[in-house]
């Protein structure tokens, strides 16, 4: 098992290198001359040259790349001009907010999509099958930023059930002491149930918005792979042997059907992390997505590069853990290795 995990870790290295090379190239492609930018409008040609030397921009590309990687490894991800903080600090303080939202949405999507997919697969052609198909097609067509606004309008403005779509917590509540950075967990640790309920209320709408979008691929894949497994010979044998329908469905079919679903999780995470940015903007969620948008609007590029890099690293890590989990779910992987 450990050797399998090691093998997966090694397999992720080319992706990591690819990610760092691409973000480096994107940094080099920045519009304008960074040296001229730092020198300011009054900077003379000599001053620009001086700064260029200081920033290492006079060196060759491979040398610059080595410096870039060294700085990244040291935790020097540049400064945010807008906030005056180091990009890495900004990102790490905001990351829990984004992660809490993303994971909550994933959880919600999984607990809705998988039963829906199973139901649709066991009753092909029924209304629930059509519902599943309809939701799947409609779900991927929803612009997340638009559904978010629509939900906010209906549930905040019209019905008044949800709090104002502004941030993670009502301004009159104070954030719980930071342990994990997830307000839901931290407030439980602090036994502050008012904060827990407040955080949950703020979380619901953005979570539903995100979940609606990723529900579709999950439900579709569950349905398709359940249908495939249910028509397999071993299911017929199991049924013919008189096993209870429930046992056949969950023990025999579902475990096998789970594998392709886990593979789609990678794609689902790509969607989630991407639309997270949009949802954060709609709900003024103080995560790394809204941080990147603010930086983009202010033409402050170091935070944007840091954001792209950290999202990519996060995504590589997520894919790696899916790969490793896959090995645990599918016993055949152990034999192959």
């Amino acid at each position, binding site marked *: 098992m450990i050797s399998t995990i090691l093998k997966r870790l090694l397999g992720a290295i*080319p*992706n990591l290198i*690819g*990610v760092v*090379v*691409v*973000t480096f190239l*994107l*940094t080099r*492609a*920045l*519009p304008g001359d960074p040296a001229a930018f730092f020198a300011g409008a009054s900077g003379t040609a000599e001053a620009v040259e001086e700064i260029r030397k200081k920033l290492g921009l006079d060196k060759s590309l491979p040398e610059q790349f080595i410096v870039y990687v060294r700085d990244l490894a040291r935790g020097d991800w540049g400064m945010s001009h807008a906030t005056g903080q180091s990009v890495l600090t900004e990102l790490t303080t905001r990351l829990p907010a984004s992660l809490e939202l993303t994971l909550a949405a994933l959880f919600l999507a999984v607990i809705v999509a998988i039963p829906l997919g199973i139901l649709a697969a066991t009753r092909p052609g029924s209304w629930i099958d059509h519902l599943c198909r309809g939701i799947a*097609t*409609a779900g*991927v*067509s*929803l*612009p*997340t*930023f*638009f559904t978010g*606004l*629509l939900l*906010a*309008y209906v549930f*905040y*403005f019209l019905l008044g059930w949800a709090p*104002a*779509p502004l941030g993670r917590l009502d301004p009159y509540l104070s954030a719980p002491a930071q342990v994990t950075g997830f307000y839901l967990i931290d407030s439980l640790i602090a036994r502050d149930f008012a904060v827990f309920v407040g955080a949950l209320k703020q979380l619901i709408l953005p979570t539903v918005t995100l979940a609606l979008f990723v529900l579709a691929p999950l439900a*579709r*894949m569950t*349905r*398709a792979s359940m249908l495939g497994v249910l028509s397999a010979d071993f299911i017929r044998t199991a049924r013919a042997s008189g096993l209870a329908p429930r046992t056949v469905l969950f023990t025999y079919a579902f475990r096998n059907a789970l594998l392709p679903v886990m593979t789609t999780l990678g794609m689902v*995470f*790509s*969607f*989630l*992390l*991407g*639309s997270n*940015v*949009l949802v954060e*903007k*709609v709900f003024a969620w103080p995560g790394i997505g809204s941080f*990147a*948008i603010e930086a*983009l*609007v202010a033409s402050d*590029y170091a935070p*944007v*590069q840091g*954001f*792209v890099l950290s*999202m*990519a690293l996060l*995504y*590589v890590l997520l*894919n790696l853990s899916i790969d490793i989990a896959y090995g645990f779910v599918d016993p055949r992987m152990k034999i192959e290795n």
Partner: protein
Amino acid sequence: MTSVWQKRLQTLRYVVGENPLSLAAFLLFAAFVLLALVGPSIAPFDALASNVGAPLSPPSLAHWFGTDSLGRDILSRVIIATRLDLGIAVAAVGISCILGGLAGAFAGYFGGWTDRIVGRLSDTIMAFPLFVLAMGIVAALGNTVANIVIATAVINLPFYIRVARAESSVLRNAGFVEAARLAGNSEVRLLFHHIIPNILPPMTVQISLNMGWAILNAAGLSFIGLGVRPPAAEWGIMVAEGAQYIVSGEWWIALFPGAVLMLAVFCFNLLGDSLRDLVDPRRRT
């Protein structure tokens, strides 16, 4: 010749009968194309002119979709935006279909180092959350519509590479290719005359499945303030402009452009599904 067409018509009728939504999607698609073509001449007002009506007035007979904070007619803006939104998506998907298709076909046909390079390129793109990569590309290249097209094209590349590669690596050993090779055709000629024409049908399906997603991505980028600049009319940016008014109850500013955007994406997705059912029924999910 007639029998072939009759047969096609029959299949078409079957697909439409099986899924009546396909017909609706096709009609909607035609409507969108028409809007993109003749939009500017049928829009009731100038999309950029302010104060054609009272600012922030709700939908009325004069302004079906209401007016925004500058008193611009939202219906006209939504109509005008069709050309820009579809244009960005078509250009991006076109670029990535041609480049990705060629790269994938080369990789699948020649294998070896070509395959490794193309595979690595596509893996590297897929190692990013795609929308985030698009943000990074636009930020790095500069905030213009052309760069939105480039960014959307780049994040779509892996899908075309994958389809073209898979198809051409199967076709390379097919009987008719073998026959053409023995007849003395050069490898490049084989690729362009025998392989690529045969990977076009699955590529077409991929295009139609991809189109809706490309529109969504482009609109998402302009929603966060990239690419299209105000006062230009574009669905994503119009939703962004209306976002601040949602919480005070002026719903029409964001609702109409958002709903039309959703309808366009939905229409392309349905169309893609039915096209796939037509070309390759086994991949139906």
